[in-house]
């Protein structure tokens, strides 16, 4: 088991990481941003979405966490977009056999994130 302490989810340091690990880092970063955006409101719906994202990341690889990057310019939807493109670019013949299912789950959650965003005042 290797730890993936990415300094910046989209920074050049992670470019050499394998695709799945990068996708996980993006998912984890999206989850953390949602948590931060809840701004201490313990009943915020954002925390629920963050939890679901974290679970999907754990399904893909339970040992990867992103380190908080204060310079990160991407938002949760953009991070999820990036993660989806990375997972979609992964050769179908490689990787864990159920990666397709996790990608589908992430795509569905991405839609929920976009819908949640559109409900903002």
């Amino acid at each position, binding site marked *: *088991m290797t730890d993936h302490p990415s300094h910046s989810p989209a920074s050049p340091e992670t470019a050499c990481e394998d695709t799945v690990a990068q996708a996980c880092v993006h998912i984890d970063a999206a989850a953390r941003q949602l948590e931060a955006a809840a701004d201490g409101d313990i009943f915020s719906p954002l925390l629920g979405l963050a939890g679901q994202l974290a679970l999907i990341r754990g*399904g893909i690889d339970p040992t990867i966490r992103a380190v908080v990057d204060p310079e990160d310019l991407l938002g949760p939807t953009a991070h999820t977009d990036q993660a989806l493109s990375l997972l979609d670019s992964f050769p179908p013949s490689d990787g864990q056999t159920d990666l397709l299912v996790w990608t589908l789950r992430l795509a569905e959650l991405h839609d929920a994130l976009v819908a949640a965003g559109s409900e903002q005042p």
Partner: protein
Amino acid sequence: MSTTTVGDLLDRAELLARALRLTRAEITADQWRSFDATSYRLLHDLVGPERTGNHEQIVSHATVSRILNGYPSPLSAPNPQATYNARQAASHLGVSRATVAADIRESRLPATYDGRRYSIKATDLPSITEVHPADPASTHPLDRLSCTLGVLVDMVVTERSRTTNIPGLDPLRDDAQVAPVMARVLAMTVVAARHALAHIPLQDADRPLAIARYAECSLDAIGDVGRPSALTRVASFAPPSSPRGPNEQLETALRAWASLARREMARTVPSTEVLRNIANQARHLYAVNARLVADSFTRGHLSEHAAESVHDELREAAQVMHALQKQWETVTTATRPGHEYVTATTNLHASLSAIERDILLPGEKVDISRRVDVDAALTDLRYAATDLVELTHAGAQLPEPLIRSEQLFAPARILPSTMERVHDRNHGRYVAIRLTEGAALINATQEGSRAAQEVQATLEISKGPIAAIELSTHSHALVTRRELEPATGLGGPDLL
């Protein structure tokens, strides 16, 4: 709602027992035997196996065991797996204990001996009478009573088969909780037996007479135990297979989630991602509960004081659950969550989010078929709060054995640096954490378990009549709805 509790079934059975007074129809010996056998099965399953270990429990169990053992020659074995000691077998056969012992010694009755007592399989006992289950299509109150008690037997058997050891959440292993239910069953047995005496052919009247005497005597032996019992709250769920509307969807999603969460926690090495998700889902459940409580207060169904107190409790517990999920985030067992669980938790998240949205919309904007029945949803969430007590209690038992068996890992870089870890740290590896390093996690899981218990207790109290104090005098409520409501909508600058 497709939820039935032991209390619901007892209430229904008592109504049917009362209805016996109004019927003049004759009953057959078969109808009586069905009732007789079901009544015995229910008492047998309520009493359960003998207690071992705790002296106090052994003594208190002796009272209810004695009552069961006094049942006059039970017509059939309660279940094929049951075993009897010599005294119970004697009672079952209607002979003396010495006769049973003689039968065993002379190999007429198979038995095993553990050095202290004989154990006789129920299937080895000669069946005296063939007993048929009551006809479920019959409209006779005695048959309906037998069927209702039969369902109760199934519920008790299912509840007993659950492996839970949570104090206060295992009423079947607490004789103080079992005794009031036994008393109600015995009271119904007296009523049914007296009815049978008056309406059964004379040649078959001996048996109801013996049972009436037994049940009356047992009622006296059990004493004045009072009516309330935690056992009446034990519930059985049958969520709709094709749920329609938000309430049915919530019920189905909750049941599936709770069941799969239990299954995930029973894995040899559970996924910390699941444990974290359970804490997060608990927080979400409390959040939705708080919204519904606020709505209930606005509609005048809940007093201001009750709403405020429940809301505070839920907020506090949600914070504890959030802290717990943050703790689980720091470690991993490297076990991935099961797909079925992820599907169930996704459905639950969707269902809870839909309810949150609907509650926030003005009434006229919600399609009537999609409108949430707040009281039904609160009932479902109350049951979910009980599930959370179990899940968080089980979760609190996990960290220590996982750490001791070196199955709980964390990145070496976030753990205290030691000579052995230098290499792992430099290579960005995960290492097994030590017991002292898991102290915060252990603490958080225990806090989570405690918070879940407190919420469950508060929700149980809040449903009572005391909480529903009239709101009409509170036109100028001190706490406005806004204060009671959780923050609405999505917040945060430049969020999505």
